[in-house]
Each structure stands twice: as C-alpha cells, then as structure tokens.
C-alpha cells in the first residue's frame, strides 16, 4: 500500500457485486465530501490545514481557478479527485486512492503528508482527504446491511441502483458494455 491509498476492512460475506458497489460509493462519498470543503468526519479542515498559505492565495493559479480562501477542497483543475480510483478488492478488503503511476499521485501524497512539493512532511498542514472515520464507514455500509429482516432486499436494491447506473452510462456513452 502506498501513501496515497487507504484500505478498509469489510465482511467476506459480501458478493463481488456488493463489494464493487461499496467501493464505488466510498469514492463518490470522498469526492463529494472534498468538494464541499470537508475532510474526515465530514468536518471542515482545522488549524493550518484549514487555511491556504498566503503565497498560494496570492498565486496566479489560485486566482485563475477561481478558488475561495475559506474553502479548502482539494480542487484546482479538479483532475485529482476525478482520478481517485479503486485499487484492489479482495475477499475482505477494499483499497482505494491513487496508484504510484497515476499522474495525480504526487499531488495526492502532498496533501496527505503535508509536503506540497517540499521534502519534509508537515502533519499540521496535512489533509488526509482519503481517510474515513468509523462512523463514515458504518454509514456507507448501512446501505448494504448483512443482518436484519430486509437486509438482502436493501442490499440488492442498492447494488442494482449503483451498478446499473454505472453500466447504463457506459453503454450510453460508449455504445457497448465495457469491462471495468
């Protein structure tokens, strides 16, 4: 596992499709949370991580991208969050984030370690935008319950909604079914 990736444990009782749907939901959740300007726990970044440096705020890039001083959202061009992906799905684990050969790896790692192009990591400035709290993981997994009366139906409905949206869009955009 590299520094710009995370692994979460899930039950081995989930089917392959269920794991795919959960992984996709994780990525979607992190993208939306980041774009809102929030980090782990869906909370605003605090301390040094919650503000942009003066030099960045005054940079041409910052102005050209129309960024706002008070919104720390891992978005300049938007490419980084788009490139975040599922890295591996195994029997009871989902890995997600950025592979080291991704062109966005450096940026993601810089955010997570707080290096931002420098050699030294700075935990105060670090924005570990991939991290999910236990509550967040529980909330995502609550859409795929393993226990309870309607657990199977709820799971199936949520998996079908998500996977059919992915497949349907692929078919619509590219005209044929493609392997993920």
């Amino acid at each position, binding site marked *: 596992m590299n520094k710009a990736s995370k692994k979460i444990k899930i039950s081995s009782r989930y089917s392959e499709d269920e794991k795919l749907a959960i992984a996709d939901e994780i990525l*979607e959740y992190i993208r939306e949370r980041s774009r809102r300007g929030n980090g782990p726990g869906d909370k605003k970044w605090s301390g040094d991580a919650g503000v942009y440096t003066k030099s960045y705020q005054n940079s*041409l890039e910052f102005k050209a991208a*129309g960024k706002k001083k008070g919104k720390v959202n891992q978005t300049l061009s938007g*490419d980084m969050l788009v490139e975040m992906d599922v890295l591996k799905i195994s029997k009871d684990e989902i890995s997600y984030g950025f592979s080291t050969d991704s062109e966005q790896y450096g940026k993601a790692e810089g955010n997570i370690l707080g290096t931002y192009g420098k050699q030294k990591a700075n935990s105060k400035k670090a924005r570990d935008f991939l991290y999910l709290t236990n509550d967040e993981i529980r909330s995502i997994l609550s859409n795929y319950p393993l226990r309870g009366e309607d657990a199977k139906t709820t799971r199936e409905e949520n998996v079908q909604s998500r996977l*059919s949206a*992915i497949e349907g869009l692929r078919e619509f955009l590219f005209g044929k079914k493609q392997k993920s």
Partner: protein
Amino acid sequence: MAKNKKVDLKKLLGDKFDSAFKKTLSKSNMSTYMGELAETVKVRTRLGGLAEKDQGSKSKIKPLKPSTIKYRQYLKKKGELSGLTTPKKSNLTMTGQLLDALTGKGLRVAIGIISVKSTRRKDRDLKNSDVAKYVSDQGRPFLNLTSKEIKELAQNIKRDLVKLLRKK
C-alpha cells in the same frame, strides 16, 4: 449448477431505470451539467491547458508569440491586462472577455452544448464567438474536452442517477 450467471441490471430495473435515466439527463439537468462543464473548461484554460482532441490528455496551450507578449506588457502597464494572467502566460486571457462569454446549456434529453456567446467585445469591433473561432483555428482548440473532464461529467451523472434510482 451453471458456472456463471449473467445479471442484466438494466433488465432487472426495467422501466425504473429508463425513467430515471431520462429524468437525470433532462434538458434542465443537462443545463446544470453543461454549466459546470463550461466552468471546468474556463478554469482549465485559465490554468493554461487544453486538449488537442476530444477525450485527449491535457497539454499546455502553445506559447505566445514575442509580439503578443510585448503587446500584453503594454496592456499591463496601462492596467488593462486581466488579473488572471501575466504578459507571458498563454491562457487565452487578455481582457478576460472570451472565457467570461463561455456558457453551457441543455438542448434536449442527453444533449447539451458549451459555447462562446456572440456578445460584442468592449475593446474591439468583434464578437467573442469570432475570437473563439480564431484562437481555435490558430492551434488553441480550447473547447475540446479532456478525458478527465468527460470522466468527471460521467461521475456526476452517475451520482445523480444513483440518487434517483434509490429514491424510487
């Protein structure tokens, strides 16, 4: 027992899927998606990037000619160069009017457009749409979409489609 089972999710969801798909890609929603896409293209261009072809990777906009740089230095002295560029930065921004005129709208289900409005420019007797055509013809085709921009659009549509399918 069969080794594989084909699961056609579209068949399973049937009409529910089709109606959600049409609703998600309605003319009005397409206007929202196209508006966001136009903003993305604006930012990417202001940052100095373009795609040589649709779904291509992002590359740098070709550098400015020395004569253009000189003219932009003159504009800067006069305080007429946009604050979103520098004399040497090649980002299709001089006064800012061209990219400010970029908009997106939905035309019908699943079809939308991003375009530069035909508004008249303040500095010259030209329309912004004419300038857009000119810069594209000169090797700066900024309206092409990068593969990541298309991916982002697809991710956003999928997010909304899932929300609708779950609601039903």
